[in-house]
């Protein structure tokens, strides 16, 4: 497993990649929030939101297949959660399908949940696929997201691979001693391995902290190199946010 897993396309060159992370966070989160609070009875605002996502995706030059597979990952969850709503929903007009009644309101709920989830996830995939993880965390930090969250995420990103390597080494050492993991009584071995892995990670965390303290770390991360928002960043935020908000307002006033 490699860092590519997260950062495979985040270092491409494109107009979207070169935007300030804060601009991308602000614009795409605005789009997500506006999308989520749009009532699902109107379908056209969602076409506008989806079109915006498609335009940004096209400008980012990310492979379409990569984006689609990432976005479609959420579909099974939606299916499990919302697929029964049209059958269970009571009240309002419904269609008789013999065995089942399909509620019209229920269908609208299903449509709303699905389209909102897909657009929101597409925004997040765009954000993470066009911004190196590290810059993304800096962006959140500079938007006043508490250090605790960004630091925890950054450390996870740095050490998850070290820990996975450690787990793989333990697994290999275990299998070399003819462990097959087929029998229930061997489950205990796996449990103890998980415990050992936890202890080792804990010890490593202490050593990392000691190494940081040795270099003068006093609990606050030093700030460095504050990039400035450029005109392009402001234009991006203004365009995405104003289009989304305008669509939402038209729905409100109609």
């Amino acid at each position, binding site marked *: 497993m490699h860092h590519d897993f997260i950062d495979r396309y985040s270092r491409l060159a494109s107009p979207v990649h070169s935007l300030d992370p804060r601009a991308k966070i602000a614009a795409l989160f605005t789009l997500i929030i506006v999308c989520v609070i749009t009532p699902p009875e109107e379908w056209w605002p969602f076409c506008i939101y989806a079109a915006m996502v498609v335009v940004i995706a096209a400008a980012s030059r990310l492979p379409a297949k990569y984006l689609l597979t990432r976005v479609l990952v959420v579909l099974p969850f939606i299916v499990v959660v919302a697929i029964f709503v049209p059958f269970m929903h009571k009240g309002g007009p419904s269609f008789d399908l013999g065995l089942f009644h399909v509620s019209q309101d229920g269908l609208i709920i299903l449509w709303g949940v699905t389209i909102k989830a897909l657009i929101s996830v597409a925004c997040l995939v765009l954000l993470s696929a066009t911004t190196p993880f590290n810059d993304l965390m800096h962006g959140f930090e500079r938007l006043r997201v508490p250090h605790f969250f960004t630091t925890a995420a950054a450390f996870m990103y740095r050490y998850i691979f070290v820990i996975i390597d450690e787990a793989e080494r333990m697994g290999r050492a275990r299998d070399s001693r003819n462990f097959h993991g087929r029998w229930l009584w061997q489950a205990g071995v796996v449990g103890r391995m998980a415990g050992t892995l936890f202890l080792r990670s804990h010890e490593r965390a202490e*050593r990392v902290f000691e190494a940081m303290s040795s270099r*003068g770390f*006093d609990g606050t991360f030093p700030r460095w190199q504050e990039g400035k928002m450029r005109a392009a960043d402001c234009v991006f935020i203004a365009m995405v946010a104003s289009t989304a908000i305008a669509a939402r307002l038209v729905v409100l006033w109609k």
Partner: protein
Amino acid sequence: MIPLAHEIAVRVTDLSYRYPDGTGALSGVDLVVRRGESVGILGPNGAGKSTLALHLNGILSGDGHVEIMGLPVNKKNIREIRSMVGLVFQDPDDQLFSPTVREDVAFGPLNQRLEPEQVDHVVSRALRWVGMEGAEKRSPFHMSFGEKKRIALATVLAMDPEILVLDEPVSNLDPRGRRTFTELIDSLNVTKLIITHDLEMARSTCNRLVVMDGGTVVADGQPSSILGDPELLERHGLM
């Protein structure tokens, strides 16, 4: 001969330490290191070498007295002490925690409150010293073990320490990596304390050797006299 006060880089007096679980690690360590010396610390596993190193910049504090460049190691002086004592850990994965080399090397200087323009300069200088110029944007995770070792050294050199403490600097390196890393350490003009099992390195790099065992100093002298005493080496698990 008693060294003059201003010549003393490290003075450890009657230092004892017990880990929270009760394991005794140090018992009555006395050690004086003069400026410019290159002292090798030898000893079997569990002799207390790394524990001693962690006392030199106040990560651990046991009973006894530790002085760095005449300054007692305590809470009040901790910032100055950590600027003066550069500790390079054994496992570079413990030392390198940032997503990019540049951020990791800049971490110490930024904690020293250097101006951002200076930091850039200091970072590229430190990387040049360890022969890793141009590696700023790389991720430490993707590097070979030898490269990680070099970067770990650079993160400490960037702070411009007076005293360099290296914990097992050449362990796990292949023979060529061992040789080039030893040469790199030789080329650094600071006071050095080198914890090592590598007698070859101890011979070539150090001008004084200290043997520790059971949490205390059991021998102290010229490399030729320590390494020329097979009985001593045998007794303390070094041969």
